């Protein structure tokens, strides 16, 4: 039964410990809420079905940091996309994540929307997801009872908007392994317009440039399957090649076998297939240009 806003309980813990205790006690009765940019939209769309309580993570300073560790960059779950876009650490090591952050909604949304919310929401159109997939990120989950566990990003989703997150757990951070020298990464998105748009297709590419050839290629797509996906066979074809826009068309056959887009309100399967190749072309063109600059 629906509740008016006055009947909804709203927890505002100040520490992670406090938050985990509430989480353990309330389980699925209290929905975690970071920036609220997805949660509030659901509430309005289905006012009769919202949860009885929310557990706000907004006040947890410890989850907002972006820090350099020995072999990784750690990004707190409630770091906002505005924070990500401004971070010198990310600009240096994961420019693709900065690009993705700048593509989320527009300024107002970037000020509220968090990377943890984007990942737990689990929409295949979540803009940060392909970048986390190519990094590849480790997802750090914590609960009061069982402590901390690390799940590779590739194992975090079990199906369309299904994750391994348990109802006593919170996502606390992402660990992105520091890329080796010479690594290039980029993100490309196509939506219905230039801002405030949900992706029709987006892609992230990360690879090390050794001379003029690509190595350790990682390629991920969003909005072309029930979850964000890596394209291992296409990656293998790109391995050792020299980046060029023609290369995208050369691998397009395999690429199209690896994705499974659908027709929906926002686009068509045919267009998503076309644009998926187009985005790879853009990425490889940019990568080639970067390589040209590095060589010059």
């Amino acid at each position: 039964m629906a509740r008016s806003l006055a009947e909804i309980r709203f927890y505002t813990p100040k520490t992670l410990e406090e938050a985990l205790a509430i989480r353990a006690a309330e389980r699925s009765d209290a929905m975690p809420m970071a920036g609220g940019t997805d949660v509030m939209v659901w509430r309005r769309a289905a006012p009769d079905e919202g949860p009885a309580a929310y557990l706000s993570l907004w006040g947890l300073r410890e989850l907002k940091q972006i820090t350099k560790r020995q072999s990784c960059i750690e990004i707190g779950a409630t770091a906002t996309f505005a924070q990500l876009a401004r971070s010198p650490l990310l600009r240096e090591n994961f420019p693709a994540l900065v690009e993705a952050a700048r593509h989320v909604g527009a300024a107002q949304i970037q000020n509220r929307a968090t990377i943890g919310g984007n990942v737990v929401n689990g929409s295949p159109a979540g803009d940060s997801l392909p970048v986390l997939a190519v990094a590849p990120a480790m997802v750090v989950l914590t609960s009061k009872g069982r402590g901390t566990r690390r799940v590779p990003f590739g194992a975090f989703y079990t199906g369309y908007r299904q994750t391994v997150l348990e109802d006593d757990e919170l996502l606390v951070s992402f660990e992105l392994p520091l890329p080796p020298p010479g690594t290039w990464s980029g993100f490309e998105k196509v939506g219905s317009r230039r801002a405030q748009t949900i992706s029709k297709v987006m892609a992230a590419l990360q690879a090390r440039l050794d001379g003029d050839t690509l190595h350790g290629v990682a390629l991920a797509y969003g909005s072309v399957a029930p979850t964000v996906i890596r394209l291992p066979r296409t990656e293998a074809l790109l391995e050792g090649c020299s980046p060029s826009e023609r290369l995208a068309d050369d691998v397009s056959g395999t690429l199209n076998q690896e994705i499974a887009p659908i027709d929906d309100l926002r686009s068509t399967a045919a267009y998503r297939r076309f644009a998926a190749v187009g985005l790879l072309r853009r990425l490889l063109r940019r990568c080639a240009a970067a390589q040209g600059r590095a060589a010059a």
Partner: protein
Amino acid sequence: MSVGESVARKDGPDKVRGLTRYIDDHNPAGCWFGATVRSAIPHGRIKNISFPKGTRWDRFVMATAKAIPGRNCVPFLTEDLVLLADGYVRYVNEPILLIAGPNHDEVERAARAVEIDYEPLPAILTLDEAIAAGTTDGCQVPRPLHIRRGDIEEGFARADTIVEGTYRVGHQEHVYLETNGFIAWWEPDGRVVVKGSMQCPYYVQRALKMLFALPGEKVEVIATPTGGAFGGKEDFPSVLAGHAALLSREVGRPVKMVYNRTEDFTSTTKRHPARVHYRTGVDKEGTFTACSVDFVLDGGAFITMSPVVLSRGVIHASGPYHYPAIEIHGRCYATHTPPNGAFRGFGVPQVFFGIERHVDRIAARLGMDPVEIRRRNLLKPGMRTATGQLLRDGVSAAEVLADAVDRSGYRERSKRPAPGPGEPRRGVGLALYMHGAGFTGSGEARMKSLVGMRLTRSGRVEILTASTDMGQGTRTVFPQIAARAMNIDVDQVFVAEPDTARVPDSGPTVASRTVTIVGRVVQQLAETLARRILRFVAEEQGGGPDGYALQGTHVLSREHGTPVGTLADIAARMTEASGDVYLEQGYTLNPDIRWNEETHEGDAYPVYAWGCTVVEVALDPDTLEVQTTQVTASHDIGTVVNPVLAEGQVEGGVAQSIGYGLYEEVHWHEGRMLNPGFTNYVIPTSVDLPDIDAGFVENPFPDGPFGAKGLGELPIHGAAPAIANAIAQATGIDVCELPVTPERLLAASNAAAQGARDDRHDPASETKKGEAT
């Protein structure tokens, strides 16, 4: 000299400071909230309405069609629209039952809890289905319209080439910032008062009179500041006002109903979808010899405004061109979808997409320049339009075309070098158009728009009209016109709140008529009032009225050039001497205007305004995304009363037309709108819009106030067809449907590639007159 100056908006400071009170900012004491229970199916009978356990129904008040004391009818051009469905529904979201209670959220929840059983009937959901079926059960349609001039057979026989094409457009949502909203209450003396966001207070009054069987003096309608309308608050407010008033009558308290965005999207009117077919004969030089047009509209489930939308579309379907022979056929079909209604342009953007795309396709066919083919065929003074209207002065098709082409650098832009790999492909396109201002034919003679003007005791001039300000600037430009006519300061003049208990019926705020029609009466009244003031001064001070003049805030003696008194002092003495200084006058249509409604022959409009829009686009080869990179517009709206406001109208019109051309699309499933929100109903944001260079050509209209024509609708005609032409130029893809989304472009280019492959196997021999699309 306030006409021609960019006087700051009178409503500006309050809007900027957030002090303006829109309808949702009003909360009368003891007010209840209303919600609407709507049909879940597109067509069928209502078997049963039930109120399941779990809701305290005794805490709410409900109303169905049975509660309506007068007729269950919201009258427009016909009387088919019902206020509440009575046992039978004709579209998804048709209102069936109203419910009120003291708490907004609880009322909404209760409305969702009501259960309705239906006996579904087969539904007609698209224009194509309606055309195939011929008729749509339970729905009426307006009569078809036909225009014929000249010898069509002879015209086509003379043609060297005949080009045909079919052009399609879908719904468009108005997307005003402020959704529809009303508050209604009943006074102890039996009067009903409604307040809300609207364009046409007297339309609302007419509807309430019929619904509640009341005389006009018992129905008071007050227009609150209106946050955008675009035609969407021409017809629909009469429905919502009726709902709020009916609930208030049942509850015995004020009732407020303000739609959220979803309800506004799903349940209010939109632009009519259309299909228009052109068949044009053209000789070797590129001169049109004949044209045959077939224009069909989807009116939705009720007639509402469709007859006049159809009529306007039919009249404008020939575009700004001359044809020795032309026939235009217009029909409107019904579907089991929400009634379509008024929307800026009113049937005309649909035909201009068709004609302006078609003319470019003819040019391409002949290997002619798009500017040249237009220049050769455009209307000039002394020519007759498709309705046989003899155009005298004020015809600027040639001027706006030349101006827009020059200022945009169209020539240079169309000769850009081919792009490098990965670089955007650029294209440039244009559209030429016109718009008839005011009501069609003798409509303005019938309407006789009444305007009132009062000299207040403090020497200020109050303009009383039912013309609302929905953001377009009525409250600013009327004072400019009056101030210029009287030669007084514009600060001395103000516009009264549109309240039917106080203001006369100056007609609806529609049809680009406010400045050119109502403004003309404002000018005449101001001149009369000035003469009256000067006569009074002459009687007081001696000499004739010609010895005095108004200036700024004073009356001067002409001889000495010195003030003889302030307007304030003189007004005080005038009111003392003769009571309220109030004048009222109606509009007189130029008697030379002749119109035959039956045959659609004659002078369709007192005047046309003209425009040309040039758009440059950049098309991304990797994704087929189209970005508009430059828009240059040229419009002849006669005298420009307020340049900043006029540019604002052009920029807004262009933006809305870019939306129509590239982004805006209503998705339906079984009669239900699938994208009733900003996530999936895509309008351009500020970063999607280019620089818009809005220039004007001023070709004054002798019967307009200081030469002004109409402006509001004109600028929405150009960008969409110009974009389609630019994309066709850049890609060679034959764009015939809006919006031109990347998905549609891909499908069209795949189809063309497929067609080219098929042709290779089966080379169709080109005949002189063979082309079909």
